[in-house]
Every structure is written in structure tokens, then in C-alpha cells.
């Protein structure tokens, strides 16, 4: 316990509190500007199990604020890089990396394995999805979101407290909410918010202090203002969700419409099949037991022949047709399908290597 002696020295934590931290599991959904500092601090604090879910790869423009990644990680899956990072900090932590998107299909199965869920996403649809799963599975959800130099932090569904839908019952139109890639963000803003999230996680575990349940902390880092707003549980909203029993939206689709996956996050032994949606005459011809060939035009009639419990990864030359194939399949079948970021050329090379 030498590692944690500064924690243990605190009367509010002690050996008993540290043991609680070591025996808690936390799922971090999205390893971007918010998720990175959360992982940094929770792994140093000794959280027993950390799950990380992110389908995306590390890009050069991420390094300005996503502090757990380096240039060595470029083009590699974020969840897997985060897992490696945690191992370097604290080998005693059990980790699980999910190199996929959180979806209406896999959400329940993944979230139910963890005690506390951290929202590090940058998509409002996923925030509602995450909220709904947390309500239905009775998990506290530690939330933060940002806009340029401002941020909001709160904890939802804590001891049956208010939820994200209680704070924001009206789902905004898709074009109302730009994300960081469209508006820009000062690197330290998600850093500060993520540390707040890690702090709320530790307070929940230790049952100390005032958890931001029923409160949203609004921060403006240009003006150095911190304002807390109170909000109540909207029983009607919560009951509506519980009655439905699944995440829902009356106005937008909670289905992620762009499932992309990279070869960097796959191995040839994964439980998946590849589907070539190019026309028969396109080069290179790739032959492998895991590859099926269904040109996009025939997908509607032939896709049911290959549906199984395996992940389906569509590919073409540029990724355009494979995204269409993935969107169609996710919308119409109860399977998890993705569009391969790299095209047929790279896949051919990857298979032969």
C-alpha cells in the first residue's frame, strides 16, 4: 500500500477507503479530452478495474489535449492505447479495452459489468444513450461536456437521483450542437473538466463530500467563474424511460450512424467476418476464409445469408460504400457491423502480413 500512502494518510480515506477504491470498477466511455485525464487520475488512484471504450484511432490533432497519448500511438485504437498506458502507470489495475462504439446493442452488456460510468463522449446522441442505460441498469453516471472555454459537470442517477434527461429533457436538433472538431477547444478545458470527473468518481466510491447529484457545475475558464445550478428529478421523464425499458428518443435516432473500425484495433483471430462490397471486377481480389463478397447493390437481398453472432466488417476501396452497407445493416438487423476505415488495398496487405 506504499503507493497510496498519501491517500491513506487522509482521515477521509484511510486504508479502508483505499481498499474501496481498489475494489471498484469504472467504465470510461470515450477516451478524448475528457476521458484522458479521467484515466490518468483513476489509474494512479488505484481503481481496481478500468474499462475503456472507444472505436476511434489516435490522430495528430488529438495530442494537443488528449494527455495519455503520444506520437507513438498515432493511428492506433484509443481504447487499446489507453489500456497500454494504464499498464505503464499501475500494473495492479485490471483493464478491459473495447475498440468499438457504444451502441444500443452492446451498451447494456458492457455497462452492467461496472460500478460507475464516466461520460467522456462528444456526441449528444451517445450521451442520451448512456444516460438511459445507466438509469435502466442503476449505475451512477459522471458527466462533463464542454464548449470552447466553458464546461458543465454533473453526476446523474446517483442513489436514484436526477438524470441527464431531468437536466436536459428536450433533445436538441443535431445542428444545434457543434463538437470540438468544428468549434475548437483550448486544451486545458477538457483537462480540468476530466479531473473534476475523476474527483466525483472518487467521492462516489468513498462516499464523502457533496457529490454533484441534482446540481450542475458550470465553469467559464476565461472569466474564472464557477456557478452551481440545482435541478430536480423529473419523475415523468424517468418513469417514461423505465416503462419503455430501452433507450429511446422521440426526435432523433439514437443509433450511431457512422460505425468505423480500423485494422489497428483488429486481429485476424477476432470473432468477425469481412464483407467486400465492391463489384466483382475490382482489384485487388482478396481471398480469405473470413472474407465474403456481396456487392453493395445485392446487399439487401443477400445480407441475411451471412448474419451470425460474429461482428461484420464491411470494406470497399475508399470507405464510402462500406459506410452505406454498415448503416443499412445496423438499421435493419440485430447485429454489430462496422465500416473498415482502410480500404481493400490495406486489408489485402494486412491479411498477407
Amino acid at each position, binding site marked *: 500500500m506504499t503507493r497510496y500512502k498519501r491517500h491513506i494518510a487522509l482521515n477521509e480515506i484511510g486504508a479502508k477507503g483505499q481498499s474501496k477504491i481498489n475494489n471498484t470498477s469504472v467504465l470510461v466511455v470515450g477516451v478524448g479530452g475528457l476521458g484522458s485525464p479521467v484515466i490518468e487520475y483513476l489509474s494512479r488512484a488505484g481503481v481496481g478495474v478500468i474499462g475503456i471504450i472507444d472505436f476511434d484511432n489516435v490522430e495528430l490533432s488529438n495530442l494537443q489535449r488528449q494527455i495519455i497519448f503520444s506520437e507513438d500511438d498515432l493511428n492506433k485504437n484509443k481504447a487499446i492505447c489507453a489500456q497500454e498506458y494504464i499498464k505503464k502507470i499501475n500494473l495492479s489495475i485490471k483493464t478491459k479495452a473495447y475498440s468499438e462504439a457504444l451502441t444500443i446493442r452492446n451498451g447494456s452488456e458492457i455497462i452492467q459489468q461496472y460500478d460507475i460510468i464516466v461520460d467522456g*463522449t462528444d456526441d449528444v446522441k451517445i450521451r442520451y444513450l448512456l444516460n438511459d442505460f445507466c438509469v435502466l441498469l442503476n449505475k451512477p453516471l459522471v458527466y462533463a461536456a464542454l464548449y470552447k472555454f466553458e464546461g458543465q459537470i454533473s453526476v446523474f442517477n446517483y442513489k436514484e437521483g436526477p438524470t441527464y434527461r431531468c437536466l436536459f429533457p428536450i433533445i436538441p436538433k443535431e445542428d*444545434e450542437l457543434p463538437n470540438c472538431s468544428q468549434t475548437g477547444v483550448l486544451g486545458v478545458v477538457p483537462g480540468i473538466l476530466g479531473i473534476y470527473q475523476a474527483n466525483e468518481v472518487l467521492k462516489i466510491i468513498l462516499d464523502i463530500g457533496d457529490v454533484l447529484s441534482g446540481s450542475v457545475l458550470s465553469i467559464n475558464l476565461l472569466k474564472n467563474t464557477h456557478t452551481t445550478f440545482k435541478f430536480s428529478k423529473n419523475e415523468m421523464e424517468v418513469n417514461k424511460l423505465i416503462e419503455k425499458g430501452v433507450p429511446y428518443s422521440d426526435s432523433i435516432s439514437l443509433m450511431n450512424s457512422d460505425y468505423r473500425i480500423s485494422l489497428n484495433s483488429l486481429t485476424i483471430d477476432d470473432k468477425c467476418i469481412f464483407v467486400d462490397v465492391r463489384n466483382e471486377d475490382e482489384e485487388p481480389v482478396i481471398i480469405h476464409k473470413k472474407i465474403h463478397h456481396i456487392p453493395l447493390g445485392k446487399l439487401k437481398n443477400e445480407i441475411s445469408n451471412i448474419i451470425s453472432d460474429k461482428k461484420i466488417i464491411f470494406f470497399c476501396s475508399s470507405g464510402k460504400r462500406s459506410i452505406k452497407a454498415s448503416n443499412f445493416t445496423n438499421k435493419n438487423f440485430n447485429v454489430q457491423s462496422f465500416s473498415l476505415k482502410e480500404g481493400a488495398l490495406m486489408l489485402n496487405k494486412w491479411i498477407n502480413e
Partner: protein
Amino acid sequence: MEYTVRYYGQIAELVDSNEEFIFSEADTIQRFIKDLIQIHPILKGKTFQVVQNNQIKREGALIRKAVIDLLPQFSGG
């Protein structure tokens, strides 16, 4: 009656202000927001939460001289 109105995020950008004083004779929050939209038509159709004296409240009586905050949803992470 004069009210202090504070704006956040995208809403502050739309009205080009973080804080201003608004005169209104409204007796409910909804009517106050209608008055506000008359002053700032750009807010029409926008989604935000209304906070009265640090308590989020979308409807009900308007407290005299309350501080009103318009809190939009953020999506960035």
C-alpha cells in the same frame, strides 16, 4: 421590473453578451422568455434550460428581480 440575465456557451455567442439587464413585466418564466425572444429573435427555436436564482425551472412564477441564466446543452468532450 429589471432582471439580470446571464448567457452561456452558444447562447452567449448568439446574443453577443455574457450578461445584461432586461426589463420585463412578465409574471411567469414562459412569458419572460417570450419577452426575451422579442429582444433577441435569434433565440427563437433554440434549446436551452432556464435557471431562476440558481434553480433550473422551465415554468412557473417569475420571482421579482431574479437572476435568470440561460444554459444550453454542450456536446464537446
